[in-house]
């Protein structure tokens, strides 16, 4: 084929230009460490590496979110750990306060100590995250959640729980509402609370009880009342006085209440032979209870001299359970014979009643209400600060009841705090697992990214050498070829 002289130059120059371009490309790859210098070098890998670095960035972000969640969760866990040991200490103190051997001043000392613990508890409940945000105030992180206003600790936060995105599909709660930890602790057994009426004179003690069938629960309040003493006005009484309530231990004895004037009365045991005067010429005040031999009478109105009231024991020692909402007795619970220690069940609830309840004694069974840890503690302090006069059965019963209530509520509080702590522990565990998987994912992503966009130095350097050689060969041969000319031989 005929070759024009220009072609020799042109084709060689363009070949060398291409060689140089390739050489520079390889050199740039080596210099930057990147295989893809612009998306055009490998559009598929370039798009893919954008995706991968996006995933990597998100993965790193989840890791950072996990750290933030861990920070809050660990702080909460530390605070609640202190709360737990504080509650355990309080429990020990409450038990020691219940010891019959200690006196009023000992109890006051314990109460003073407990007051310190209460303040400490409020401090713990107001823990901040180190940056001034409260841990247990729900969404209102800049509002102090627990404020003691004249002895009552109120919750100023809300139910909010801050979640953090710790993996693509998992939003992990990093805070817990103070209301859930400290405020919403149900009293009683958690479903219903039993309580003896304060006016009870007998020694009947009602148990905490439990739920036997949740489907039957109504959420209503009930009153369990023992049959009252029988009272009867003399016929005819000239005055307008009447007995409004009569309660008392079940006597086998009949009494008469005789007004000797409009302002004085006698009480006589008429079962005794001969009749025995129990009270003589006592002053009468309308509405003031008249108590004798374990019996308490409430007489109101104006009696006339010579008016007589007969007091007789109830027919039997039975009780009736009434639904407070409907005012009707609960089916099957009317005039039930009382056996000490027997389980009493109705409408899904069961509890026991022990001891010797007096006629007219009442016990309430109502749905559990929330009692905050602070209230339990301040109630206990109040109970311990109340002096108990020696031999005063009512006061000592109130003390025992107060301490029992406090212990019960304290147990429930402790359980609540522990269950929150176990949830915190589970979250920390989950964070550990997520962190581990996130890290290994990060390594994988970085590896893939590196494979996609980083230069393989072995290959690149070998390419570089090869291209260098080719270019050199092209240059040398070009000089040789263009050096050939017939004109060299002319003349």
């Amino acid at each position, binding site marked *: *084929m005929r070759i024009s002289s220009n072609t020799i130059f042109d084709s060689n120059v363009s070949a060398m230009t291409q060689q140089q371009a390739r050489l520079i490309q390889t050199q740039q790859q080596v210099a930057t460490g990147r295989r893809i210098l612009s*998306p*055009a070098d490998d559009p598929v890998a*370039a798009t893919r590496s954008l995706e991968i670095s996006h995933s990597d960035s998100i993965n790193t972000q989840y890791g950072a979110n996990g750290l933030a969640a861990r920070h809050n969760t660990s702080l909460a866990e530390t605070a609640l750990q202190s709360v737990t040991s504080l509650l355990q200490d309080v429990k020990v103190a409450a038990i020691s306060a219940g010891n019959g051997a200690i006196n009023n001043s000992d109890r006051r000392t314990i109460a003073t100590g407990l007051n310190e613990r209460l303040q400490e508890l409020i401090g713990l409940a107001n823990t901040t995250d180190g940056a001034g945000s409260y841990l247990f105030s729900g969404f209102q992180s800049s509002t102090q959640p627990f404020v003691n206003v004249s002895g009552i600790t109120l919750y100023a936060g809300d139910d909010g729980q801050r979640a953090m995105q710790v993996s693509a599909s998992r939003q992990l709660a990093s805070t817990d509402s103070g209301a859930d930890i400290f405020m919403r602790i149900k009293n009683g057994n958690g479903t219903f609370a039993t309580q003896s009426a304060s006016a009870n004179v007998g020694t009947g003690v009602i148990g905490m009880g439990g739920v036997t069938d949740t489907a039957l629960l109504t959420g209503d309040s009930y009153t369990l009342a023992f049959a009252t003493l029988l009272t009867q006005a003399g016929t005819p009484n000239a005055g307008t006085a009447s007995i409004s309530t009569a309660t008392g231990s079940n006597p086998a004895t009949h009494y008469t209440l005789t007004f000797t004037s409009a302002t004085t009365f006698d009480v006589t045991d008429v079962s005794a032979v001969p009749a025995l005067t129990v009270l003589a010429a006592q002053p009468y005040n309308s509405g003031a209870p008249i108590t004798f031999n374990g019996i308490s009478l409430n007489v109101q109105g104006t009696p006339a001299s010579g008016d007589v009231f007969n007091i007789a024991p109830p027919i039997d020692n039975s009780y009736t359970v009434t639904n407070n909402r409907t005012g009707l007795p609960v089916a099957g619970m009317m005039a039930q014979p009382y056996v000490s220690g027997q389980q009493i069940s109705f409408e899904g609830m069961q509890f026991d009643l022990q001891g010797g309840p007096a006629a007219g004694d009442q016990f309430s069974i109502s749905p559990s209400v929330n009692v905050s840890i602070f209230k339990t503690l301040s109630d206990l302090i109040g109970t311990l600060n109340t002096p108990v006069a020696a031999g005063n059965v009512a006061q000592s019963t109130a003390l025992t009841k107060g301490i029992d209530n406090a212990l019960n509520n304290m147990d429930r509080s402790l359980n609540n705090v522990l269950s929150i702590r176990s949830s915190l522990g589970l979250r920390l565990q989950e964070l550990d697992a997520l962190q581990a998987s996130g890290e290994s994912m990060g390594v994988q992503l970085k590896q893939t990214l590196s494979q996609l966009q980083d230069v393989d130095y072995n290959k690149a350097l070998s390419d570089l050498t090869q291209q260098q050689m080719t270019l050199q060969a092209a240059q040398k041969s070009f000089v040789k070829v263009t050096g050939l*000319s017939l004109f060299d031989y002319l003349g």
Partner: protein
Amino acid sequence: MGTNIYTSALSGMNAALLGVSTAEHNIANASTPGFTRQEIILGARTAQSSGAGFIGQGVDVAGVKRIYDEFLTTQVLQEKTQASYLSSYHMAMQQIDNILADPVAGAAPAMQDFFKAVNGVANTPDSVPARQTMLGNAQFAINRFKSIDQRLTDIGNGITGQITSSVNIVNSYAQQIATLNGNIKRAVAAGQGQLPNDLLDQRDLLVSQLNSEIKTSAQAQPDGTISVFVGNGQAMVIGEQAMSLRVAQAATDPSKVEVNYLNDGKLIALQQSSLQGGNLGAYLAFRDQSLEPARNALGRVALGLAASINQQNQLGQDLNGAMGAALLNVAAPRVDKGANNTGISSVVATINNVAGLTTSDYQLRFDGTNYSMLRLNDNAVTNLGTSLTSPVNVDGFAVSLSAGAMQAGDTYLIRPTANAARDIALLTTDPAKIAAAMPMRTMTGAANTGTAVMSSATLNTSPMSIAFSDPLLVPQTYTVTDSTTNTVLGSGNFSTGAPISFNGWTVNVVGTPSTGDAFSLVKDVASNAMLASAAKTNVGGAVVLGGKLNLQQPFSVTFNAIAPPATLPTYTVTGAVPDVSATPVSYTPGTPINLSYNGWSAQISGTPASGDTFNVSKNINGSGDNRNALIMAAMQTQNLLANGTASLQGGYGQLVGEIGAKTSELAVTSLAQDSMVSQTVQSQQSVSGVNLDEEAANLLRYQRAYQAAAKAMQIANTMFDALLTIGR
């Protein structure tokens, strides 16, 4: 007889002399662009008849011819046009290719940093430094979008300059070809059949250079001139007359120029599709098929980011306890009135659904009766009905006629995302304005005795539609339907202008809707207003006036005991708009209760007791609430674009991929085309190119021929001398 030898030798010497000068001409022009080697054409003179036969008379030089192959030259022209097209396109593409996927300078890392900062706010919503970082990183991402967009605009301006200069070059070449046509015509006429080879070479070179700019076709005429045509057969050169091209603002799009053909003082626009090949074709194709779609795609990502973050921020509550406002500026679609419109009208377009947006531009048309929308990248046509008084939806935006009336044939160019990357901006510098919290929270009543719990309230702002019943049936009623789930949310009696409230929003419909008329409502991406758009089939004259969203209306739920004879317990909702407190709702114990009022949804599960209350109330002091920030952070991975098929990063990645693939394709085809060119040039040069060795040989050959002819003359002289000697 002696004279015969003389003449014969002289003709040989003459021919050799011409041969040498042709060879020298070839040598001298060996590197002249477009030069075609020449050869002398020799022919033996007619022999003289004599008794001894025909006696040779010497040599005649018939002419000098170009060694020229028409076919190969045409092929070189075609390949070069294509090569210059590909290489110009490739060079232009490389400019955008380099800026998009840079791991430091591209938009992808900036968006990642922004979402990192959003996560930071979600983790510590009450931290002002975290919020400040989010604003700072937002500004950083905005700057990246803006600077990439600016770069693309600069490239576009550069391309406009190149189009102009390319058109000038085309005009100048056309003029030069016309001038040469004249010279050649006269030279051919004067040369009595001899061709002016060097003029032809010059003209061929000009045609070749013209072809580098624009694809042409040439036709040789009998008088030696050529006619050159461009585009769809528009003549650039006829004989000695040259036409010209003009660059002018495009009639449909004032933001760019188009190439026009000047004919009798009138401009005829040349479509980009008819200007394939050459630099000019490359610039136009690059601008229309790569640069503008790239800007639109970048704009779509920027708009998706701005609109989605805005939308969510407006649904939240900021650090000051106020409802969030727009954080970022969302550019409105660009609307350009057609230059040839006869009607006096104006049209507005509003973005109402980021997911529906494409990267295409649109043309709104009116045929006298119906409005239609042409999507320019695939020529899909959407019929918009006969009225544009109320906005009508197309692909994520709504158009409406804001004033005047369109005449048949009027058009508007609508570019939904073209300005988005340019106009994205941060609207606040106050870190407290980031709405990390939600405006409402749920609270369980403190005295509740039941075990029921209420879930965190979630927003319920999915698009809705209102449909109307027959106006002749009194009272006319409306029905509100959730457009996502197609469930009926509520209904009521319609009276014109009376507010219709549901899920926190309130709108007023004015006028008389006809049976089946419907309006769809979505929340505006830029404000707390509701955007209403009319169904394409609406016939009534009703329009939606105003509309606002109020997400801070508290409501509470109170549980009631079973009231015989009913067998199921009920709950009463107070505070709902419209009020429903008079009608307690019954529920089945043990089944979760789903509530949705005032734009908020929540679920109550567990066993509520009679008298228990649950409140959905204002989130006062909710500085530690991060629910809204979590939703914003999750937008990083949500498929917000392309009908829910691409995330923001995905949309950007798609852009990078498309540009990369096109550049890579051009790099390969351009390289292949270069080798095609060098092959055809080689073939053409092997015929027409000068080989110096060959010319050296020719020099020697003609030198020898000259020497030989001179010797013959000497011999003749000697012979003549001998003859004279005889006579002496």
